[in-house]
């Protein structure tokens, strides 16, 4: 760092003082929270404001207004669809961040064998994975599509799909070096760039649906105005499926990015980490 800014080191902590302060502050926080909680409506009280003010409409009218039997999906994807766009953006931000911090530095990957990047190379594991992965991936898509009537939806499906990809990487090694280690197993699943493309496509699809609603004269994300035919609830149901699919793409892509960068990752030097302090054990 040729231009290392002169000046003081970053905020030197005085652990002892902080510890003493902490010892006093945290019990106070706990007591304060509990005192406040004594005045909240009882746990399970059906007459509490939370249960009587907004939620009756979500419970009684959601199916008719949005076409989703799962009220959580109805609120998530429709009434508060803007929150869900934000949620997709948050996880996308994490993916971008890990790529910037760990991968896109023009760095080389870890040498094989470092961290968890080496395949296990067990026949049993290999066979089990061959059977399990398709099931997991299929189940992920089921969770996505069935989210209207049962627990699940784009986010959970996306995480499951991503987990399937992670499973393959754990057993067979990362997508971009899978072939080298296990010639018998075809490298499957998107690499880093592919995962990024998936994630971006998901966000674009989500915003695109929202903007399309604006193009047809509605507010941003007002699916009711989309010309998909049928009654409004049905149109909203279809559009909800669309945005759930968008969330699915974003989450699946980002999960793969997160795992690849964090566990397999790349380093500036490409050299294995020398042991640090306390690393001996």
């Amino acid at each position: 760092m040729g231009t290392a800014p002169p000046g003081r080191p970053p905020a030197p902590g005085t652990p002892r003082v902080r510890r003493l302060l902490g010892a006093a502050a945290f019990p106070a926080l706990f007591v304060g929270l509990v005192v406040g909680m004594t005045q909240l409506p009882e746990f399970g009280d059906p007459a509490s404001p939370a249960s009587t003010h907004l939620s009756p409409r979500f419970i009684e009218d959601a199916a008719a207004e949005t076409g989703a039997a799962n009220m959580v999906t109805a609120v998530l994807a429709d009434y508060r669809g803007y929150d869900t766009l934000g949620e997709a953006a948050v996880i996308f931000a994490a993916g971008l961040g890990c790529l910037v911090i760990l991968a896109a530095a023009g760095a080389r990957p870890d040498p094989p064998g470092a961290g968890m990047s080496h395949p296990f190379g067990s026949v049993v594991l290999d066979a089990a994975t061959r059977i399990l992965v398709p099931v997991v991936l299929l189940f992920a898509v089921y969770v996505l599509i069935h989210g209207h009537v049962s627990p699940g939806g784009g986010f959970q499906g996306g995480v499951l799909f991503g987990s399937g990809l992670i499973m393959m990487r754990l057993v067979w090694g990362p997508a971009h070096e899978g072939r080298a280690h296990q010639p018998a197993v075809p490298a499957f699943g998107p690499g880093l760039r592919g995962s990024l493309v998936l994630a971006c496509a998901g966000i674009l699809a989500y915003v695109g649906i929202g903007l399309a609603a604006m193009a047809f004269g509605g507010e941003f994300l007002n699916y009711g105005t989309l010309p998909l035919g049928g009654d409004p609830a049905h149109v909203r149901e279809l559009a909800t499926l669309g945005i759930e699919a968008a969330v699915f793409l974003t989450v699946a892509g980002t999960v793969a990015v997160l795992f690849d960068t964090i566990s397999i990752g790349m380093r500036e030097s490409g050299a294995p980490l020398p042991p640090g302090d306390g690393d001996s054990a």
Partner: protein
Amino acid sequence: MTIYAFAAALFTLGIAGMALLPNLLRKLLAMNVMQVAVIVFFVSLAFKDGATVPILGQGGAPRAAEFMNPLPHTLMLTAIVVSVSTTGLALGLLVRIRSRFRTLNEQRLLDRLR
């Protein structure tokens, strides 16, 4: 009330761990505990005695008293995503810090920056 107090206990545990634990990875575990505490709190607000899960079954028009409040559940789905995103990014930073400064101990890290 008793239920809420557990959320308060988890929250305090988490935030105290974030402040006091010396290892950065442990701080992140504590951070997750803190975020889960908030989720527990919200979910406990959604509970209604005598109500069932907020998914419409067969049968007539739903009545508000029959189902849990779906709104906090929705909010907490988002909060879970936020927490995993933060954790993911933080772990990325952590790997980077470890490879550059060779330690995850807060005090040693500060000494090395000096």
